[in-house]
């Protein structure tokens, strides 16, 4: 049975800060290729953003929230370390209390992790409806250069066995043991990174290329058969490095390279980028998706676009709706002045 994505949507908070404002404050901006990034408002967090995209994704099908049988939430920056998170979203959107829900929170791979559990649900429950919402606004110390790239955004997908926009052709994963790159010890409020650049790049390339090439092999595909490749975007340069290693081109990356104007969206990076690729994809297009989370793991998914139906709110529209803030207002909104 064919399963896939039957609805999707993204949400980008409207505040933006430009790299020039960072350069003015710190003398440099350390997120490669990022020109500006998105920032959440004072009264938003990943749960309010997830509620918004979940509603929008359901409306894009349209599917009534009462029909949802599985809900998965993904974020690396939840407001609580312990407490069910998905329940807040499920309840506010009107998804039945009896739908099985899960929280995916420990790495930037969480977005695709949640998508794959959603697909597994639909695979074993052909009349079921899964909703996956990824929302993130990662937090680091203002003194740490890893903070510069961190943006904010969310995307949600309705997964089902009918009314498809994009059919899932297959998925593959790779997990391994790495450390020292982007981690948060139990007692730490902020992300740590030991800044061992070459070692971290080795982890990123190993995990992503192994997941990606395993899927290509499984589907007996060549990179040039894809019109779009969506890759984890910790900045705007990493995707090209991974793409080149797998013999994908910059042209295949173009439809999903949102980090140039939104920054690092953490667990929502691949979901928002995939929504962007779906916005411009034509029937028959193939989309390769490769996520990455430090620690480390990567998921690859392959989609074939089967319908021209689009969501009502395009990622580009969300990116164009913006209000610039300066660095002082940024510090206030991030709660960095206490």
């Amino acid at each position, binding site marked *: 049975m064919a399963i896939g994505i039957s609805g999707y949507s993204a949400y980008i908070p409207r505040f933006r800060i430009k790299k020039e404002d960072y350069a003015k404050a710190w003398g440099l901006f350390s997120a490669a290729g990022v020109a500006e990034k998105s920032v959440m408002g004072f009264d938003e967090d990943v749960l*309010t953003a997830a509620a918004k995209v979940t509603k929008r994704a359901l409306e894009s099908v349209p599917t009534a929230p009462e029909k949802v049988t599985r809900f998965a939430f993904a974020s690396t920056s939840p407001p609580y370390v312990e407490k069910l998170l998905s329940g807040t979203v499920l309840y*506010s959107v009107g998804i039945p209390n009896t739908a099985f829900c899960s929280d995916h929170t420990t790495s930037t791979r969480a977005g695709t992790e949640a998508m794959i559990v959603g697909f597994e649900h639909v695979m074993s429950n052909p009349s079921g409806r899964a909703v996956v919402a990824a929302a993130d606004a990662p937090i680091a110390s203002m003194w740490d250069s890893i903070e510069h790239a961190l943006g904010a955004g969310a995307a949600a997908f309705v997964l089902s066995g009918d009314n498809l926009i994009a059919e899932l052709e297959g998925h593959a994963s790779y997990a391994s043991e790495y450390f020292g790159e982007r981690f948060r010890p139990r007692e730490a409020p902020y992300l740590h990174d030991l800044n061992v650049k070459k070692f971290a790049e080795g982890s990123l390339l190993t995990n992503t290329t192994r997941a990606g090439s395993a899927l290509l092999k499984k589907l007996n595909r060549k990179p040039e058969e894809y019109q779009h490749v969506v890759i984890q975007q910790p900045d705007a340069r990493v995707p090209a490095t991974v793409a080149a290693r797998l013999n994908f081109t910059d042209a295949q990356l173009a439809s999903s390279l949102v980090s140039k104007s939104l920054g690092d969206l953490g667990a929502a990076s691949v979901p928002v980028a995939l929504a962007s690729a779906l916005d411009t994809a034509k029937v028959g297009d193939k989309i390769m998706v490769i996520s990455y989370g430090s620690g480390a793991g990567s998921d690859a998914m392959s989609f074939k676009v089967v319908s021209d139906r689009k969501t009502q709110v395009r990622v580009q529209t969300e990116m164009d709706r913006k209000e610039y803030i300066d660095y002082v207002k940024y510090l206030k909104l991030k709660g960095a002045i206490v």
Partner: protein
Amino acid sequence: MAHVSVPMYWRTIPQRYKMIGQKCKKCGAVNFPPKGVCKYCQTSSEFEEVQLSGRGKVHTFVLISAGGAPPEFAEQEKAGGQYPVAIVQLEEGPKMIGQIADVDPKEVKIDMPVKAELRKIYTEEEVIRYGFKFVPG
């Protein structure tokens, strides 16, 4: 700060998270937030729950500036600046007070269409109190 205990807040989450209103079984008017006795016919206390659309328009509004915010919203005003508070006429009839979010305060106008969405209202006892605010649309 006006203290709202956790159980007291929890009892109001159907209205705060989902905008569940009450339809009077006698006169048919929609009450929101819920009442003990229908605000309109003032005779019936029999209601059925109705899901409100969250859509409405700005009936009137005020901008809260420095010094004007109640204690639970003072930090919001300091971090984000002036914010609008409106009386919104919901499409089902009731008028409701709420903040207007996601908007330049200077762009709020009477009769502007708005819709409700989930936001953080404030935090008390380390518990984030979520509820609806209105956004343009």
